[in-house]
């Protein structure tokens, strides 16, 4: 399965340190929040990319392995942890867990790669940038719960949905970064 990403980097056949050197360089030219797919064959690139991402503030999303090639997904740091949430009402993860039993719509507005590796069962994927198009598929009269990693992108998305005449919209905070309920994904 192909995952939509903003940029790709072919680091196949390159030995350490080149996969990370090249990833770092390419990410410097990306916009905050954008996702890169790094293809590598060096086994060590997995542990090193994870450790490097953790230190440099980028988000390590996950790695797929296919025919001896590692497909790493990283999202450029966007500083979203520090942003305040302006949309009301807000619900927490526990409240969402209760609501999952009911007839609600759960919209996950993270990037496709993030959704692909782990999401709440039943969540609809609608990356923030594609929300306008995805909105068509949603029911304006049913409650909508919007989730992302930390509550920031979902804050923007919830406002958009509300502006588009969705009647009951809730922003889930913090969201997937501390979700301890059921998930599915690769």
């Amino acid at each position, binding site marked *: 399965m192909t995952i939509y990403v903003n940029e790709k980097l072919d680091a196949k056949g390159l*030995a*350490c*340190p*080149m996969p*990370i*050197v090249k990833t*770092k360089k390419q990410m410097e030219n990306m916009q905050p929040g954008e996702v890169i797919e790094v293809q590598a064959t060096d*086994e*060590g690139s997995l*542990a*090193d990319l994870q*450790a*490097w991402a953790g*230190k440099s503030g980028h988000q390590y999303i996950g790695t797929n392995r296919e025919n001896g090639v590692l497909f790493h997904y990283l999202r450029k740091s966007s500083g979203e942890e520090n942003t305040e949430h302006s949309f009301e009402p807000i619900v927490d993860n526990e409240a969402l867990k209760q609501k999952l039993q009911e007839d609600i719509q759960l919209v996950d507005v993270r990037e496709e790669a993030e959704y692909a590796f782990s999401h709440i069962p039943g969540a609809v994927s609608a990356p923030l940038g594609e929300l306008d198009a995805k909105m068509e598929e949603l029911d304006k009269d049913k409650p909508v719960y919007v989730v992302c990693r930390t509550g920031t992108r979902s804050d923007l998305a919830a406002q958009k949905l509300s502006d588009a005449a969705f009647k009951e919209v809730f922003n889930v905070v913090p969201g997937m970064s501390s979700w301890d309920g059921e998930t599915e994904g690769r």
Partner: protein
Amino acid sequence: MAVTAWTPAETAAKVMNEEKVFILDVRNEDAFQDWKIESEHFEYLNIPYFDMLDGVEDVVEQLPKDKDILVVCAKVGSSEMVADMLSDEGLDVAYLEGGMKAWSEHLEPVKVGDIPGGALYQFLRLGKGCLSYMAVSNGEAVVIDAVRMTDTFEAFAQKQGAVIKHVLDTHLHADHISGGRMLAENTGASYWLPPKDAGEVTFRYEPLEDEQTIAFGETEVAVHAVYSPGHTIGSTSFIMNQQYLFSGDILFVDSIGRPDLAGKAEDWVADLRNTLYQTYASLSKDLIVLPAHFMNMSEIGDDHTVKAELGELFKKNHGLNMEDEEAFRRTVTENLPPQPNSHEEIRQTNMGKITPEEEKQREMEIGPNRCAVQQ
């Protein structure tokens, strides 16, 4: 300034000669925590290479001016890069050729002593703490607990003008991949394994029974098998020339074996106790114990070998001096160190059930040895 490459052999010489070296290890922190080039005379600094991509000015301040500096990474690429960067800042530094991968495969041969018609050698795998042996007598050689780097044994035998006749494993190893089968295949030697450990092996072997004698070279140097279960159910020790006791993973210089690698800790405690406190106790105290592993560099003696007289060990080794059986049982079954990396896959490989590619085999063996109980 100049960048030089140190081979694993040159690095091993620094370790053996107790020289002072400053190691700048540029692998990620988990890898460094897991294992490194050990020496009581080395100093260490761990900064992952990916923290130095924007420059090494801050690092230079943390490096000594009066010591050899060796930059180390997993394979070699990152250490070369960092060494070049440090050189641009005006430092003389070295990097380890082949990185920790090559280090984990380096074998350092050291002569243990003369035997009739030849000599006995110990091969120290410094990067992992494995010990292998080759005895040469009248142009015939026996190899005990060969590790995966069989080329080294073949080349060494050739240099001695010897033909490898027998390859023996004290037990089915779970902490490293045995080279025994491959070495026997390459040289036409017989491969001997304790049958109780070999129930599931997929290849032909010669069964090493208790009291079996394996002759080579001069008559009196023959190897005598002593059944000594406890680490595994088949664990067998060897006595050579009435002088040397190859103890496998049953008894080490500073510690004793642990019985749980196959998940049988409780079952095998009594065997281990009996082997150490009955079988070994009845052997001549003058025997020189030659184990299959060492855990600390301090176990390497002034002659660069790892060995000890059995009598000495009965005096000093804590594991041989626990009168209370219950305390012994607790020690060998509780609070054990983590199991070696990939130990189950390694057992499967040593049984011939799986045949991973060389790169995969390297990866399975990466990390420290953890098969002893130490106090």
